[in-house]
């Protein structure tokens, strides 16, 4: 597809992406979902996320990118069902996400965030086992099956060897894997990650995204990753949602979304975009050397 000639002044409505892989049904349907934070009833909104739309299927990885305060976290919360959209809808397999009861929602949607520091020491396996909470009954004593599922989850992220270690004694990358394992233990349909690469070195970042890709494929997840790492998103995502100041500017394959003018406008930095042989765009910060037109 040729890059569109229209710039950031294009209409804010985002057309849904075309079918990319096979005829798998739509799992996540975000249709013109919007939200506004206000401090009071009659006050002007502090921040608004305008109508955003995109769709995702099983085994797809969607990246939500944009500068700070563009509404990425808000969008994530709408998808997670913790916020109810002001207008529009967010549906997971036909069910409105915000209207699911917490227990069912936790069985279908797993969210991975920067964890708050733990108050009391816990072992990794204890932490992962908490992912089985949405399936517990009564006093919720875990069953042997729960234990197996938790171990499998850790195995999937190559964290089995960490299971008896204390959470506050393992490295950042190892902790990230354990947190991910907990999300996997929830056996969700939808996996949401909020800036998972923040404290990781480049090797660990690539490692994580490769894992996510693999997990999406193996476990048939739909994965939505909020990140500001443009190149990681470009390399691993099937779709990219570009947000800027609460507006959804573009939805589509990375090559469609990463246009130089658009990106420069959004990120307010001198940027160059080039395509790799695999049709994945690469973004570079433009140096003092003048670059030949690409």
């Amino acid at each position, binding site marked *: 597809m040729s890059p569109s000639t229209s710039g950031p002044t294009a209409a804010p409505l985002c057309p849904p992406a075309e079918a990319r892989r096979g005829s798998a049904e739509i799992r996540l349907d975000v249709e013109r979902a919007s939200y506004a934070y206000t401090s009071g009833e009659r006050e002007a909104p502090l921040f608004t996320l305008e109508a955003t739309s995109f769709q995702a299927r099983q085994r797809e990885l969607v990246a939500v990118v944009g500068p700070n305060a563009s509404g990425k976290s808000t969008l994530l919360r709408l998808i997670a069902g913790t916020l109810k959209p002001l207008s529009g809808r967010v549906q997971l397999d036909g069910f409105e996400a915000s209207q699911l009861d917490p227990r069912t929602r936790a069985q279908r949607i797993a969210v991975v965030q920067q964890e708050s520091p733990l108050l009391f*020491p*816990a072992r990794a396996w204890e932490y992962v086992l908490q992912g089985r909470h949405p399936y517990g009954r009564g006093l919720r004593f875990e069953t042997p099956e729960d234990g197996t599922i938790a171990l499998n989850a850790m195995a999937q992220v190559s964290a089995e060897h960490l299971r008896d270690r204390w959470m506050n004694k393992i490295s950042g990358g190892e902790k990230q894997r354990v947190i991910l394992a907990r999300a996997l233990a929830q056996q969700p349909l939808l996996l949401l990650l909020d800036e998972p690469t923040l404290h990781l070195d480049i090797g660990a970042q690539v490692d994580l995204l490769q894992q996510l890709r693999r997990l999406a494929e193996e476990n048939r997840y739909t994965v939505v990753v909020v990140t500001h790492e443009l190149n990681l998103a470009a390399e691993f995502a099937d779709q990219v949602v570009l947000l800027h100041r609460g507006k959804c500017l573009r939805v589509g394959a990375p090559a469609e979304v990463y246009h130089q003018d658009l990106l420069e406008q959004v990120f307010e930095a001198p940027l160059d975009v080039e395509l790799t042989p695999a049709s994945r765009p690469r973004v570079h910060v433009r140096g003092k050397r003048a670059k030949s037109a690409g």
Partner: protein
Amino acid sequence: MRPVTLKRLAWTCGALALVLLATVAAALKLGAVPISVSDLLLSMGRVAIGRSDRLPTEYRLIVFELRLPRILLGILVGAALSVAGAGFQALLRNPLADPYVLGVSSGAALGAILALIASPHLPLVTPLAAFFGAAATIAAVYFLGRRGGQLDSGTLLLAGIVTASFLSAVIMFLMTTLASRDLRGMAFWLMGDLSTPQAVGVRSVLVVGFLVAAGAIYTTAADLNLLLTGEQEAAHLGVNVTRVKLVVYLGASVLTGLAVSVSGAIGYVGLLVPHAMRLLFGSDYRLLIPTSALGGAIAIVLADTLARTVVAPTELPVGAMTAMAGAPVFIYLLRRRLR
């Protein structure tokens, strides 16, 4: 990998219950008036087979009217304070939280003082008034501690501390300006004192109240484990955070109010026992709540027995013993874990 199972819970509680039983037996035997083990067993036997009228009166009085009720009261108070402490530590996300940090004990003390002023001659009024004082404080701090419609840990803590200070100031004012003869006993009560026998009605209320409040907190035990990893994380895992916080707040406050109404503010138990139980049995609240209850009961009965016997016939206030005995034990446990 050893998750908490029902079996493990049963074994642990069983072991602690045995320790409690041994402590109670020792407490029955020891006191200002020495009673030998054989006498004790003999009289237990007599009571068991319904021949209690054969016991010499003073003996029956001392063991069954003085020591046993006091021990039972200590068990209830110790269990209540420990469970409340564990609950507040989770609710406020603060390992230093104890049952009194939200002002409940000051409210109870104020209620008791007001009762003494109004009608110094009615016995039941003091625990009742103390409990109402506690209840009023619970409500006030709840409304002050909300943010955006639900309880917020930081705001709650501040609201509680401010309320506690204010109530303490009012208490000081009253104690200084009013006819001091009625209030001299208050000073003793404020330190924490189990020596006042309670009417049977009060005891039943205590038992029922403890079971209901502690039971309510226990239903949220699994949720509390998750809550401690973060409120948002817990919500994403299906925990109804608002409901859980409210249940724990009410349950722990009611437990504290009940305990303080009958025994004054016995310190350190609510803070140290949950930590000791964590060091011994882990931080999982499904295990922590029952073990804290049993551990607290053991601690108070021990402390009270010491308070009664160390410089007999003079009695020390229980609160002094809990502080003196508790801190070294805790340090030992802490060092053992860090090694």
